[in-house]
């Protein structure tokens, strides 16, 4: 497919429409996604050789991908409502406030470390969906409550979710973990500190960054170091999980240091202790750890998998999408299923302890549906238009244009390509699948280290989590900002661009240090 400025601008138009409507006009994700979908359909038919058959298969793949994401989201919303109906969110807020009255420490524990832990064990928007209401309960504004975990957890996405995104990168490029892991862990390690800094800055600006510097340095060093050690020693599947677990332990120590100790806050008591309030999350950790880390359980739950086979698809412009299976859904072993088990168990525990009012289950279901529908509409429309762009070669053309225009400065822009992919699909994994080979080939043609460029790709893809509308929509739905995602996106996009800029500079330096 020939690359021209007009074609590049046309390929960019669906993304531009979504950006302008969400950021400029404060449209919600559902409406903006639908506008992006119509733009993608019209442009793909008019300029990229889309056929009805191509559009049909793109929509089927989009629906499968959406169902994978929605499974997690609906289950996460269910868990949240199961917890919320007991008054536990308020109790957690008060409990943490008493444990450490320091707002920066509270922010770092929840928004940076706990959200990363959730990314390590679940992912797919769960960190934002779970942590945003917890921060709102601590008194942070709804916009900050969503923006902080969105920024804070991004560093852990590649090696989180049991390393799914890193696995995708290895699969599409055919390169080994030994070759890819060191540079990827180094760049994501740098992102660890930058995401922590961003999370504090979005709340309190430069003033609080000085106050939080020691905590950021200690916790960041522990998490980045643990991630590097696990990733480079063959245990990359546990990279995000292990790093954030070590980070949680570090938080307990840091909270006792002189600058952060202070007088514990005294506030109203609730009828529920912190332990019982957090019990649903302990159950979540136990269920997810068992479902992911215990091979017999994982094998047992993974027996029923739904998938569809797709034929080779070719646009009239000559863009070919190879034949293969679509994104499969493991009905009982999926992350969403594990969250659902945790929700049911938590409900039973809370009900046995008498924490619910009569008829609470009806409220749980009603509230879950109320927040789930607008969220789902946004995600389905976004993913469907991203699939159209992918199947017509529009996404590839965008990346190709970036790589050709920037020439020798390409390493600086490599993470931006990853960021673009994650922004569009809401997934580091999809970004790596779509752009991994392109980045690898570009690096080889330019005589650059593929390990460095692919590390930049996956780091950019991870950072894209903080600006991906699909994920922002999830967080907003849990703090009463459904349909008002624009202000949050406006807040996170600045940090996403700045941190990606730093990663770009690090990539430029790295290609000098590591020749091909």
């Amino acid at each position, binding site marked *: 497919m020939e690359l021209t400025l007009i074609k590049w601008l046309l390929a960019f138009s669906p993304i531009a429409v979504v950006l302008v409507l969400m950021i400029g006009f404060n449209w919600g994700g559902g409406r903006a996604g639908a506008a992006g*979908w119509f733009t993608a359909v019209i442009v793909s038919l008019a300029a990229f050789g889309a056929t009805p058959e191509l*559009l*049909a298969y793109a*929509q089927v793949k989009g629906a499968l991908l959406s*169902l994978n994401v929605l499974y997690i989201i609906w289950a996460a919303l269910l868990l949240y409502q199961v917890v919320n109906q007991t008054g536990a969110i308020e109790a957690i807020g008060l409990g943490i406030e008493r444990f450490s009255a320091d707002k920066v420490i509270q922010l770092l524990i929840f928004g940076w470390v706990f959200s990363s832990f959730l990314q390590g064990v679940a992912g797919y928007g769960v960190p934002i969906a779970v942590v945003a209401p917890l921060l709102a309960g601590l008194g942070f504004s709804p916009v900050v409550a969503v923006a902080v975990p969105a920024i804070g957890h991004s560093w852990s996405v590649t090696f989180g979710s049991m390393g799914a995104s890193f696995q995708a990168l290895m699969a599409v490029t055919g390169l080994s973990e030994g070759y890819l892991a060191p540079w990827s862990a180094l760049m994501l390690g740098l992102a660890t500190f930058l995401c922590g800094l961003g999370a504090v800055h979005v709340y309190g600006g430069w003033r609080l960054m000085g106050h939080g510097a020691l905590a950021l340095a200690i916790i960041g060093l522990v998490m980045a170091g643990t991630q590097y050690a696990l990733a480079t020693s063959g245990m990359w599947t546990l990279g995000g999980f292990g790093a954030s677990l070590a980070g949680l332990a570090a938080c307990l120590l840091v909270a006792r240091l002189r600058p952060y100790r202070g007088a514990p806050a005294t506030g109203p008591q609730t009828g529920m202790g912190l332990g019982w309030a957090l019990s649903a999350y302990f159950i979540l950790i136990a269920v997810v750890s068992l479902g992911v880390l215990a091979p017999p359980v994982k094998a047992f739950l993974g027996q029923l998998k739904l998938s569809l086979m797709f034929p080779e698809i070719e646009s009239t412009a000559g863009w070919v999408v190879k034949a293969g299976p679509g994104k499969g859904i493991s009905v009982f072993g999926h992350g969403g299923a594990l969250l659902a088990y945790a929700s049911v168990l938590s409900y039973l525990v809370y009900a046995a302890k008498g924490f619910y009012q009569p008829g609470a289950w009806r409220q749980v279901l009603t509230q879950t549906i109320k927040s789930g529908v607008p969220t789902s509409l946004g995600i*389905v429309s976004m993913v469907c238009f991203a699939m159209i762009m992918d199947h017509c070669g529009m996404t590839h053309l965008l990346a190709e244009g970036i790589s050709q225009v920037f020439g020798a400065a390409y390493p600086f822009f490599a993470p931006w390509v990853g960021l673009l992919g994650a922004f569009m699909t809401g997934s580091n994994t999809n970004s790596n699948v779509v752009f991994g080979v392109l980045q690898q080939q570009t690096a080889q043609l330019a005589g650059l280290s593929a390990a460095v460029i692919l590390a930049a790709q996956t780091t950019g893809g991870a950072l894209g989590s903080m600006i991906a509308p699909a994920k922002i929509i999830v967080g907003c739905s849990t703090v009463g900002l459904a*349909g008002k995602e624009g202000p949050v996106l406006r807040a996170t996009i600045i940090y996403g661009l700045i941190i990606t800029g730093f990663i770009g500079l690090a990539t430029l330096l790295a290609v000098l240090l590591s020749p091909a």
Partner: protein
Amino acid sequence: MTALMKKRAGAIKKLSLVVMLAAPFGLYLAAQAGSSSWLYLLLGVMGLSMLANLLLD
């Protein structure tokens, strides 16, 4: 927007979500069977669902 209109808009949005997730599987069957009439019909249904999503705030 009155309460009744809001209720109707909510119901249409729920329906459009179901259609947006279900119609693609009909599209898959239509594409596999080579039935272009079903393909156009279901693509139109997808488009209507997206339109409802776009117009109902």
